[in-house]
């Protein structure tokens, strides 16, 4: 056992030496990493630099649309980007990504089976898995009657009088419309105006009960008690639970959106070889686990054993198996569906 580990270690070491030597021959030892804001622990970059000698500069964005717009405009010099699955097809079809053939990377063997061959990138030609999570809702069990809410979107869209005025929704049209669609049992990307009408009616009925729409400060909003209930991401909920143990996360039985973020390399990347070194390094279990432990989202690498005990006890991070069937991977909607969603959102807020 020991010997085997040692052998793997040596093999890995030689390989990483080889790749870094190759990289050294062609590229300066630097890497431009364009990631979601607050979605990567900075300390880990120091470790990467120490092990590979590649210096990483990180920059942040706030939505897939920002990323798409930057890449479409051209001239953006990023080596590694983190697109969600809902924009991968667009990036591939627009010919904006470099083929990296992730399965050929040494550490791809650590990728969990469920993440090896996703429908948005068959065969992982253009991407490697990063983190994944879900958009359900969270509540403070100390402040609801009976200390427990039903695991249904009904609690969120048609709130009890005790919670009214003390709940928040995300200020992202797709997240709100996805949740409403799941509750009503219609397709998230429906092109039928009648579905849009029903969604709008539901949201308009909910609006007077809402304190706000906001996608910022989600951890603090729950932890400080500003609201009793809010539409929330699992990782954000877990971080709030750490500050206030009565906060719970709900996987609604009608279904909830699941997002999966990926590492990819733009066609215009100035250091594609360094990018591959980085992506390969991130598929090592200890590095993937370091991210999950720092920012509380699960990753797609076999690293569950390395997860911090403080997260392991939380349903929000360590999802109970029976909830797996409730996850609905986010889709990329057609322009027609997108236009309907925009109309719902404008009318809702108009």
């Amino acid at each position, binding site marked *: 056992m020991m010997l085997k580990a040692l052998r793997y270690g040596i093999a890995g070491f030689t390989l990483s030496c080889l790749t870094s030597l190759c990289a050294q021959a062609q590229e300066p030892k630097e890497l431009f990493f364009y990631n979601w804001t607050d979605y990567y622990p900075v300390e880990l970059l120091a470790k990467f630099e120490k092990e590979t000698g590649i210096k990483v500069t990180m920059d942040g964005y706030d939505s897939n649309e920002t990323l798409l717009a930057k890449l479409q405009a051209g001239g953006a010099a990023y080596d590694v980007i983190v697109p969600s699955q809902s924009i991968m097809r667009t990036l591939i079809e627009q010919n904006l990504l470099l083929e990296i053939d992730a399965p050929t990377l040494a550490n791809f063997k650590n990728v969990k089976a469920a993440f090896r061959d996703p429908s948005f990138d068959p065969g992982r030609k253009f991407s490697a898995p990063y983190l994944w999570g879900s958009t359900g809702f969270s509540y403070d069990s100390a402040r609801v009657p009976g200390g427990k809410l039903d695991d249904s979107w009904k609690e969120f869209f048609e709130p009890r009088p005790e919670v009214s005025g003390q709940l928040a929704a995300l200020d992202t049209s797709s997240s709100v419309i996805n949740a409403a669609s799941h509750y009503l049992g219609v397709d998230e990307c429906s092109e039928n*105006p009648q579905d849009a009408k029903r969604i709008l009616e539901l949201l308009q009925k909910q609006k007077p009960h809402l*304190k706000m729409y*906001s996608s910022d400060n989600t951890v603090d909003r729950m932890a400080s008690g500003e609201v009793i209930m809010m539409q929330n991401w699992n990782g954000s909920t877990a971080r709030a639970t750490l500050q206030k143990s009565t906060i719970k996360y709900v996987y609604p039985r009608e279904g909830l959106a699941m997002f999966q973020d990926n590492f990819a390399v733009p066609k215009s990347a100035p250091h594609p070889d360094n990018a591959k070194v980085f992506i390969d390094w991130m598929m090592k279990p200890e590095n993937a686990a370091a991210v999950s432990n720092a920012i509380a989202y699960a990753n797609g690498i076999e690293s569950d054993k390395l997860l911090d005990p403080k997260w392991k006890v939380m349903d929000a991070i360590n999802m109970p198996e029976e909830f797996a069937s409730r996850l609905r991977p986010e889709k990329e909607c057609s322009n027609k569906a*997108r*236009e309907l969603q925009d109309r719902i959102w*404008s009318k809702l807020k108009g």
Partner: protein
Amino acid sequence: MSVSTQSPAMSRLLLLSPVVLTLLALIAIPLGIMGYISLLPRNLYGGVDWQADWQLQSYVKLFFQEGFDGELELNWVYAQALLRSVAQAGGTTLLCFVFGFPVALWMTGLAPRQRSLMVLLITIPFWTNLLIRNYAWLIILREQGWIAQSINALLPQAGGITLLYNDFAVSVGLVYSFLPFMILPIYSTLEKLDWRLVEAAYDLGANRWKALRRVILPLSMPGVIAGALLVFVPSLGAFITPAILGGGKTLMIGNLIQQQFGTARNWPLGSSLSFLLLGILMLALVLYALYSRKTAKTIRRGAAA
């Protein structure tokens, strides 16, 4: 060719060229591109189809929209957002004037050294990012903050007043952000004010209020107008403050435009909305110019009589 042989028209053109080029590069060309985009059909993945024929669809959409039942209906959403933004910006301008004018007037009475110190103090908030200043208000105004806590402790019968996520909070944020734009232009006109005119008013029997209303205020009008424009125009397009402090429950025209270039991926509609906003601002400026020409004429006529 020596300078003397050039025609005066030619040399005038050469002398003006830096200005013309700047205006062309920073205003005319970007506006032209925006106008062009507003006439093109949108692309599937954001952006526009540059090769397509011109169309006016994005302008029609400003006023008419296909309803969920398939019929074409008058679209009030954008008009409402626009009216709401105009009202909000107008209110902000008025409040900035109410708070800014006394400050500017007070500053002119200070010793020159203290005046420069005050100018510095007023500009200091600008050294911090707008986003951070708005978040600061979020922390000050929230329910657990000391202002809301003390108000609710003093007035328990009011039943829990919330200061955040409403129009009040947005007004506070906008006034705080844009107040210096009002103070500084008023201060610069008042600084050059000939105080002998005010003394003359006193000699002629005016009390303090009358001197302020009939002499100081009219003389500071250029500064007030400049300040009002500097406050009104940016607060009309503001989208960060309403999104953070307003709780995102209502759309301002700025949010609407941002949404078109972001999640909605509808650049033509975003451009046509921008032009609508621009058109309304132009209209306001033209009306103001006409009005001021008229008042100038009446004043001159009054002086002649």
